[in-house]
Every structure is written in structure tokens, then in C-alpha cells.
């Protein structure tokens, strides 16, 4: 298993292929999420371990101490880490490809996955050439790429403004969570209607280790509705609460008729 391979040597490459079948068409826009379990993005020390000022592009040789121990790489290399902190360091870095049996490679978009507000207000690149700007800064220890090389295909999607980073930096509320990974490009032929039924292959370049803490990784393909993804909770809750209210209404009507003559 890839997990074990990575555990032994984090730098080794391992690809994992998973086939699955869609029984029916996924009509509408399809989103691809990665899900992690038992991953405590909401731990106090984790949540605070970031430097918002740095992420706004105000690079500082001494990042906030909140980022400890991921402020500087090690005792020898006193360069500050950018982006610093445990959150950035643990950026999810598996690379997932979706291949349709019939139509071949499914084109996935890696933009538009972060909140526009985040992109606009919380993450800014330092001005000027990114490579130049980040010259004096080290990449987080876990990372395989530099921050300015995150998306080789799209120069605008690099640095702090990289959407994968932005998505990741929005820490999840619960230890089981999913994050938007890619959008299916529905402009490509064959995908205009959505994702058609059939066999698919997930090709995962396995970089991210979850085994040590008994975590799991998932890939989720989902369409959305007005209320978002598939979630039966609201519906059930509404039905239950509605019936209780109705019952209470009748009950109190009876009580009022019987005892309320005062």
C-alpha cells in the first residue's frame, strides 16, 4: 500500500489507482472533494499556528511566534518559513486525476475552489516577482514544492494566492471534513450534462500521510443543490420538529379547553 511506502520514505513516489462505477448520471455541476478523518484541523495549537499578516503578503523575516515550531526551518537555516505555521506545513498534497473509461481524462479545474472573499481579503502575494520575493524564505518542511511553484500551469495560482493553499488554510470545524479539491470542467465535450454513468479511474499520486494518526483519506464526487450537498439531516429534522409542533398545538388546545377557564 502506498500509505506504508510513504511512511517509510516521505519523498518516495507512489501512485494509487482506484476504479469505481457511477450507476447513474451525475447531472449538473460535479465537484471533487478530498475528505480526511481524524484530522484535527480544529486543534487549538493547530488553529493558531499561522501568520495572517504573512499570508497577506507582508513578508517579515520574523514571522509571528504563533507559527512555532514552523517559523524557521531548523537551527542551521535561519530563513523564515513562508507560509509559516503548522497549518500550511500540513497542506494536503496528494494529486488526484479522474479518468473516464469512455471519455478519457476528465478535465478538472483548480480555480474557483476557494472562497472569493478569502482570495480577495485574506491571501495576497507579495508584490513583484514571486520567486524573487520568496528567495529569502524557506518552504515548509513537509512541502515538496516551493510556495511559488505550487501550480506550474497557472502562474496566477501560485504563492499565497494558490487556491489549494487557501482552501486548506480555512481550517475545518470538525476532525472529519471534506475540502473542495477540483471542479469538473463542464465546458469539455462529454461533460456538459455532468458526469455520465460509467466506469472511472481515480489516479492518486500519494504524498500525504494519514496513517500515523489513524486517519483516512477519501475522494468525494458530488453535485450540489440549493442546500448544498447530500445531507438528509435538515429534512428529517424538519419533519420531526414539524410533527412535534403540531402535536403540541393539539395538546394545548385540549388543555386550554379543559383547564383554561380562569
Amino acid at each position: 500500500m502506498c500509505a506504508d511506502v510513504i511512511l517509510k520514505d516521505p519523498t518516495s513516489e507512489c501512485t494509487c489507482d482506484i476504479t469505481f462505477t457511477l450507476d447513474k448520471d451525475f447531472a449538473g455541476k460535479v465537484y471533487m472533494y478530498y475528505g480526511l478523518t481524524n484530522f484535527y484541523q480544529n486543534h487549538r495549537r493547530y488553529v493558531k499556528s499561522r501568520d495572517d499578516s504573512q499570508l497577506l503578503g507582508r513578508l517579515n523575516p520574523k514571522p509571528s511566534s504563533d507559527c512555532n515550531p514552523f517559523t524557521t526551518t531548523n537551527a542551521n537555516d535561519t530563513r523564515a518559513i513562508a507560509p509559516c505555521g503548522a497549518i500550511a506545513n500540513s497542506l494536503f498534497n496528494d494529486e488526484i486525476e479522474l479518468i473516464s473509461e469512455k471519455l478519457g481524462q476528465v478535465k478538472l479545474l483548480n480555480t474557483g475552489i476557494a472562497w472569493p472573499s478569502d482570495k480577495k481579503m485574506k491571501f495576497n502575494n507579495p508584490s513583484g516577482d514571486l520567486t524573487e520575493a520568496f528567495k529569502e524564505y524557506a518552504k515548509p518542511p513537509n512541502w515538496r514544492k516551493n510556495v511559488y511553484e505550487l501550480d506550474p500551469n497557472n502562474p496566477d495560482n501560485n504563492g499565497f494566492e494558490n487556491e489549494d493553499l487557501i482552501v486548506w488554510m480555512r481550517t475545518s470545524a470538525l476532525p472529519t471534513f471534506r475540502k473542495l479539491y477540483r471542479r469538473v470542467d463542464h465546458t469539455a465535450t462529454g461533460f456538459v450534462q455532468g458526469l455520465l454513468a460509467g466506469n472511472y479511474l481515480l489516479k492518486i499520486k500519494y504524498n500525504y500521510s494519514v496513517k500515523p494518526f489513524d486517519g483516512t483519506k477519501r475522494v468525494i464526487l458530488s453535485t450540489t443543490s440549493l442546500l448544498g450537498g447530500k445531507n438528509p439531516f435538515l429534512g428529517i429534522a424538519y419533519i420531526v420538529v414539524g410533527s412535534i409542533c403540531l402535536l403540541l398545538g393539539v395538546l394545548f388546545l385540549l388543555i386550554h379547553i379543559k383547564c383554561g377557564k380562569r
Partner: protein
Amino acid sequence: MARQSRPTSSTSTASTRRRRGETERRIRANDREFNAQFHYANNYIKTSKYSVLTFLPLNLFEQFQRLANFYFLCLLVLQMIPAISSLTPVTTAVPLIGVLALTAVKDAYDDYQRHVSDSQVNNRKSLTLRNGKLVEDKWAQVQVGDVIRMENDQFVAADMLLLSTSEPNGLCYIETAELDGETNLKCRQCLLETAEMGQDDARIGAFNGEILCETPNNLLNKFEGVLTWQGKSYALDNDKVVLRGCVLRNTQWCYGMVIFAGKDTKLMQNSGKTKFKRTSIDRLLNFIIIGIVFFLLSMCLFCTIACGFWETITGRHFQIYLPWDKLVPTDPTEGATVIALLVFFSYAIVLNTVVPISLYVSVEVIRFVQSFLINWDEHMYHEKSGTSAKARTTTLNEELGQIEYIFSDKTGTLTQNIMTFNKCSIGEKCYGDIIDEQTGEVLELAEGTVPIDFSANPDYEPEFKFYDKSLLEAVRRKDETVHSFFKLLALCHTVMPDEKSGRLEYQAQSPDEAALVSAARNFGFVFKERSPNSITIDVMGEREVYELLCILDFNNVRKRMSVILRKDGKLRLFCKGADNVIYERLKNNSDSRKIKTQDHLNKFAGEGLRTLCLAVRDLDDDFFNDWKNRHQAAALSLDNRDEKLDAIYEEIEKDMELLGATAIEDKLQDGVPQAISKLAQAGIKIWVLTGDKQETAINIGYSCQLLTDDMAEVFIVDAHTFEEVELQLGKLKDAIGNLEKSDGVNGGPTAVSVVTFRWGKEQSESDYQHGCSVEEPEISGGIALVINGHSLVHALHPKLEKLFLEAASQCKSVICCRVTPLQKAMVVELIKKNKHAVTLAIGDGANDVSMIKAAHIGVGISGQEGMQAVLASDYSLPQFRFLERLLLVHGRWSYFRMCKFLRYFFYKNFAFTLCHFWFAFFCGFSAQTLFDPIFISFYNLFYTALPVMSLGVFDQDVNDKNSLSYPKLYTPGHQDLLFNKKEFLKSAMHGFFTSCILFLVPYGTYLDGVSPKGHALSDHMLFGSVVATILIIVVTAQIALDTAYWTWWSHFTIWGSLCIYFAFTFITNYVFGGSYVGSLSKAMIEPTFWFTTILTVTLLIVPVLAWRFYFVDVKPTLSDRVRLKQRLESLRSRQSQDILRTPSARRTRRSIRSGYAFAHQEGFGRLITSGKIMRKIPRPNTDFSFPLSFGSTIGASLSPRKPVVATSSSSSAGAFNNLAPPEIPGGFNEQS
């Protein structure tokens, strides 16, 4: 002498606080050096606590002694430590500093006030003798041993030995209202030897007497000391001492030597320590908060343990992404333990909002504003005196809604201390009612009724009011009986005339006498002057001089006084006294006048008036001379003199002819009976504690409805010894026991409630039936207790305490008479200690100060002369009747509001804080907060503070009118029904479940939440914002539900808070770049949020609604019903407003009871006949004049126990004054 051998009861109980080391006090007059060696306190008075320099440290020290402040200080320190800090220190620092600053400002203001009043008192001017010259000095600079000159109507600066006075024989008159509340004049006399110095400053300046006396103590009626001067020793007693706080009256000047100054004075020693008063809610709150702290600690402990487990199981392995801090050991178990221990403190910080610091601030602010509502209440404004109610302490308001016992002073509090000549019966005819000329019906006194115009009489007093014209007509007709009647009033008394700025004024020992003499004066029978043996009156402008042969003075046993006068050779005895006493001594014929007058007396008594019967007897010379001789013999006898004299008096006061009766109204303050009956209906027990005589006290008890005729018994305890008191109390207990048995159902407190409800309904019906024939509700269960001060001494003894308490607390009303200030306080303490009831003491004089301070709440009557009571009080009212509104409206509201406030406050904080606890289960017990730190700081400060504050200030379940008409609404406060541990638990549980739902519903909806655009919505910031927003909405909806009384302010604050929440969230994030930027707006543009919100709010509000509906519908409280009625009324308010008329102030009393009008002790009789208080020697042209004798009587004054007969005077000129009993100058102001 029996009178003097009676125990001076008050002195034996009062504790004597002795200064350490000082066993006696030695003072030398006019010798500062000598006195300085003893370091006696000077006359400087300091009640303030801080100075400019000591303010900050002392005040901070005091403030941190409050548990809450200290707790938050600890929290603040914890938050400074980075490894622990789960929240920025600002969240605690800002509110803590705010609280400290606010309290400090308030304390500073209070202390400033004290400084001002101190310096005002300290800077009063007094004339001090320095080296034989009078120097104007400040009070504060007066030293022990100084000699001071005081002038008329001035306050006495310190406790002083009288040296000389302007009045003859070294007499001086003082009013001691500030000290003991008695407004009658008291007489003090200095040593004759010192009196000789007169106002010769040089001589007095050279006075070098040395005093050896007792140490400072609080006994007002006792002083012991010896004056050594010019080689002779003189005994000093209380009679030669004037105390600080007294006012000099009718005395031009006097000189005195300071014995006790400043804090050593009896006034200050009696004032007791100011205790910091706290309400029972405060105490409960402290208890609850300690409970909450324990709850908090156990939550922290739970999280600690859970965290330890989590770190060992998961966290340890999660280190690849989240390494442990450097200071944590790398060993898994050790590391987990250290982290877990640190998390304990982190959670203490995160969860500290269950004990919100803003609670204390809010409570203080609410009380403060409530106090202003009391101050601004125009229904408690007294126009006549121009004063309004004032909350002097702002921290006790809600306790006003829980009062169970009211201890009231009488004079000046219940009564106005004004006696008015109201009605009279003369020769079978009753005067005083206003009769409607057409119908012949008796009219009620109304505002517009015009009093008779007396201005034809040059000596008339404009303030005298009488409405029945027929009496004046009878006087003008020269009706013989009417004339005799008024002549008697003008002659038979011991009043002293006094000329003040050209106007004749009377100085009487009792206001009753003054009222009678002034009535005669206005009707044209003006008492002009008296000499030891003559009385001069003006009858319709003509001068008449009567030879005064004898004064048969008043005392408690005789209950009457007589004078024997001669005019134009005719001897006549004039007598006035209690009706039963007079009737026994009337001529033995069945006169119709007797019957008619008796009817009138009953009528007067029924109206609560104090009555006196007047009678005359013509004497012949032989009989009188014979009697006079025997009288003299009796007066000279050495044993049983009093009894013998009484027997002699008995001989002459018989076969009298009835003239009529007077009816004096001891004017109650307006609305006192109504207020008392309302308060009684509210389940409050009212005790009257008065320094007055038993009779007066009972009389007032009746007129203010404390005692009623349908009471089974008015039980009087007046024994002098421990055993007797025990016996009497035992009997009382038996009586109560019997009554309860016979009454069966009606016994016990439930009966009262039944009764009062009926009474409430009956009001309107009995209005026109006038009470007499209407069956009174059966309150007959009640027993009233009247206990005398000297019996109280024993009753308050630790052994009898329990018995007394048991008996007294079952009585419907209790009246304690002749009690000392300290006893008043002791009674209050007794109830406070043993009944655990909330007590209120109300009084107007300095004698009430100790009681006011002892009680949970002290109320002072303002607008009177003395300010001591007001200064010591927590609330001041211009009139007693406002107490009704203060308690039943403001007190009840305050209590209601405070309880509601607290319930809601705990609810909202539990709902808020526990969300973090639920979140702990998902964040690895890492003390991560669910909410934005800014939200946490602002939640209690801005988002939820205002609506609950407005609830705490303005909410009301029923309006003031209904609060007053349904006094029963007051009772929940007695049982702490609105806020107690159970109610707190309910609120806490409510908050607990609220937080649970608040967390779980969004958890359900946002677990895998994505937006239609595919963005994941399950991030921490968005989730926190969603929960926070729903929390605000729910909590605001809850306050809207709780608000029973909507004002524009409630609307403003409730909607305002919602707006503020959104506005602040926007501003902090978008303008100041908060890290939560975009989270809430992202959530709110998604329908998921709205569906979740509606679901959560429904889930949380519907059960509350259902719960309330059920209770209001099925088990409505009185408050619910009144509110319903109120709502219905307001719907048809334009229809006729039914005005609930309160029963007439003077409800007719059925029983035949005499309230006879002699409120004073023995009169000036002896002094008058001895001529001691006469300034002017009678004019020589009167044939019965004789030289005044000083020497012998003065000899007596020094040794009052030895009867000395004024032999020298009797031998001279055959004067009659030797008929007077031997001189006991100190006797007439004796206390018991």
C-alpha cells in the same frame, strides 16, 4: 422613694464599650496641658474611609477582597501565560478594569460625600473660652476640658457638664429629639455653685474644677462622676449633663465643660458601626457563583482527563502535522500529562464566562438605575416639604421586595407629632363636626372646608383650625358651661408661657397639653402668665388673675391632674383626666350629661381621638383648709410619701361636676393606616418600636390599625423581673395556643391570606355601608403584643429570647414601648438572626439610627429637623405612607426585575459558554474556542447586555396601580420564589440544553456542508459564526419572550442588539480586518444557514412557549391573573374606570375604649409651685405674692434622695406653695 428605687431598665442591658485601658476619665477644666496627657479624643468626627493618597491602594485592596474580582484577577494572570492562554488577556482585562474603575468612582463619590458632611459638622462654629475670652472655634477643635458657650436653638457640640445658664437656678431646657426621638422639652440643671458664675467669662475662664467620671459609653440616661472644685466634691449625674446632638431651647445661653468629645460622645457611641449591607440575593449569588466555579472546575477537570487520553491516543500520533510545544516532554505519557494539565487552565479561561464578570457590573448598573426610578417617582414626592423619596444606597433595591418585618418608630414616623384640638363635648353638646346645613348630615373634612376665622382675637394662632362655628357662637353667647370649659383648659395645666419676638408662645411637656391650652387661647381664653401662686388669663379680652393654691400633678397611676384656684374668694378645683378616672369621681347622680358625654366619648374614641374629661368642683374654705393641713402632713412624711399624697388627692378630687370632654387628634401622617393595612395584607409584619409611653403607643396602635377591636386580645407585658416576664410570655404563648385551637381552620398564616383576599373585594361594598354593621372578615385570630422596655430587657435575655421570639412572631402586631435606641437595634437583630427574615427599620430621629443600621434596610423619614436617621438610612422617604409604594411597587418590581435578570443572565451565559464544552469533544479537548475571540469579548458586553439591562430596569409584570391594589403580589418575595437555587438550576439547565441544541443542529447540517457552488462550508470559522449568530438570535428571542412590559427602550435594545451584532461583526471583520472576514456573510448567503436557524430557533423557543402556556393556562399565579385582568382592562380602558376607593382613614372603631390624652410624664407642677422655673417675680400688687425661695430647694437638688421640705418659704407670708410636695428637681424627667 419608690419611684427612684425602680430599676433603670435601659441601663442594665446596654453594653458598655469601654476603651481599652481607660477605666476612668479625669479632666480639668480650662487646662489643655493637663488633659492632653490622657490623649482623649477631640471633637473631630471622621466617618470617611479614604484620603487622596490612601484611596487607590485601600480601595483596590478592598475591591480585590471581593471574591469575584479576585477570581478575575487570577484569570487575567493565567491568560498572560502563552502556553495556557486560550483567549487574549484583553477579553478579561477590559471588563475587569471597567468594573474596578466604576466601583472606584462610586466609592470615591460616596467617600467624598462623607468628607463633605464630616467637614460640615466639624466646621460648625462654637464659642470656646480661651484664657477667659470667648473665641469662635470650629467644632473639630474643641477639646475635652474646654468650656463652651452655647446659645438658644443651637446644637450641643459635645457631651458637656453644665456650668451656668441664663435661666434661674441654673436650669436649662433641651430637646433630645436627635438622641432619643422625644420632642418634649427636658430640663437640666447645673450645680448651683457653678451657676453663680453666670456669664462672667473671666470667672468661668478661671474655673478649674476637676472631674473624675465614667469612661465613654452609650448609655443615654446615665452619667456618673464627681466634680472637685475649690476643695469640695460634688456628685454629678445625668441631670447635669447635656449631650451632643441635643438642641438648646428656651435658654438664652449656657456654659458647659466638655467631658466627652467627638467619637467618645454618647451620640456617636450609640450610632453603631456602619456595616456593609448586602441583599439576600447577593448572598445567594455568591453561593451560586461558588457552585458555578466548582462546576467550572469539574468541567475543566473532565476536559483535562479527556485531553490526557486524547493526546495519548491520537494527539501523540498527530505530531507529524502538529508537534507538541517545546516545553512539553517528548515521552508520550509525560507529554500527554503535561499538556492535559495545561489544558486545565486553558479551559478555566475558555469556560470562565459561566461566571460572567459582567454580571456584577450589570447588577450594579441595574440597581443604580432602579434607584433613580425611585428617586424620580413623582408619586413619592411630598409637596408640602418639597422632598422626594431618595435611594441613598443603590445596592439594596431588590431586597425591598422581600421585606418580612417592618420595625417602625412612632413619633414623627407614623405620627406627625402634632396634636390638634379636634372635637369636644361641652354640656351634653358635641362640637367639632361639620354639619351640612341643608341635610343635617355630618360632612367629611374636605380640602375646601373653611375653618373658623379667629382673627378677631389678638392672640389667635393662624395655624389653629376648627371648623364648627357653633362653638364660637356658644362662646360669644357667654354660655356658662362653655366658658367654664375653656377656663379650665386655660387654667388646669403645667404649660409655661414664653414671649418670643412679641408673640406669646407655650412650652409644654406634652403636645397634648399645648394643644388644649392653645385651643382655649384661640377661643379667647388666653393663658397669659403664671407665677408660683397665680395664673393670669385673658377671658375675651378681660384680664383675670387666679390664685393658685395647689397643683395636684399628673402621674401614670392617677391619670388626671387638678389645680385648686381661688378667685374673688371662691375656691374651685379644676380637674382633667382619663374618662374612667373622672367618671368614678363625679357627683353621684344619674345626670343626663354623664350619659350624653359618655356617648360622645365613645364616638371620639371610635374616631381614634385622644380624649380627656373635664370636671370642676366648688370647694368651701373649711374643707379646703382641713384638707390642706392633711396634705401638708402627708407631704412631710418620710415613708410612702407618694402613696399618702395620692390618697390625700383622692379625698378632694371627688363629687366633681362634669363639664365635658375634649378630643385631641394625635395627627397621624397622611395615609398611615392605609399603608399599614396594605403592608399587612402583603404579608409583612409590622412592629412599632417607640420610646413613648405604653398608653400612647397603644392609642396610636389603634388609630393606625395595627391594633383592631376584632383582635382576640391585646396582651401587655410589663413585668419588671425576669421571672415575671417569663411568666407573662408563657401566658401569651398559651393564649396563642388556645386561640389556634379554638380557631381551627382560621389559625396560621393561611387564614390571613383568605381574609385579605376577601377584604380586597369587600372594599367597594363596604364603602357605603360604613363598616359598622358590615360583618368584618374574621381576623379575630390575632393577638397583639405590647411589651414595655423594662420587660424587653429580660425578654431579650438569651434564655428568654426563644420564648419571646416564638410568642411575638405569632402575634398579629407587636408594639414595644419605652424602648431605648439600643433595644430597638437588639430587637431587630433578634429577628434578623433567628427568623432569617428580611427586616426593614423606619424612623426619623437619631434614636432610630441604631435600628436603621441594624436592619437589612433602613429607611429614614426626611424633611424633619434631624438628619441623623436619614444619613444612616438606605432610603429616605418624606412620609411613612410612601413606604407602601416603595415596597409594594418599587421593591416588588426591583425584586421581580432582578430575579428575571439573573435567571436570564445565567441562562444566556450557560447557553453561550457550554458551546465550547461541546466543541471540546471534537477538537481534541484542546481548549479551542468555538467562537471568534472578538465575539467572546463582545457577547456579554454589547450583544446581549442591553436588552437584559432594559429588562432589569423597566420590566414589570403588573403595573403600579395593580401592584398596590393586590398586595398579595408581594408575597413571592418572602419565599424567594422568583430566584432561588431551584430557579437557578432551571435557568442553568435551560442554558445547558440550549447550548446543546445550538451546537448539535448546526453540527448536523454543516458536517458535510457545501454551498451550491461547491465550496465546503464545514470550516471552523463559518461554523463558529453560524452558531454564534443563532445563539444571538435565540437569546434575543428569549429576552423578547421574557419581556413582559414593552417600552420603546425594550424595542430599541432588543432589535438594537441584533443590529449591533451584525454591524459589529461586519465592522470588526471588514474594517479592522478580523480573521473571520467573510465567514458569516458566506454562511448567510447560503439557504442552509436560514434553514438551520429556523430549525434551531423553533426547537429552542417552542418548548419554552409550551411550558409557559401550560403554567399560565393551568396553574396561573396571582401575578398571571392580574396581568390578564390588566390586559383586558387596557383593552376597554376607555370605558368607565372603576376607582377602587380605599377605606376611610378613620374607620369607626366599635369598642368603647378610651384613649386618654396624656402623653407626657409628670408635669412641671412641682417646679411651678416651687417657683423654681419662674423668671419674673410676681408683681407686688397682687396680694398673695411672696418672695421666692431658692436656698432650701437647691439644697435638695444636690441630694435628691433626701426629701427636704421648703420650710423657709412656707414660713414666710403664709404662702400656699408649701402644699406642693417636696422638691425633687431631677424627678420630672426621670425615665420610667
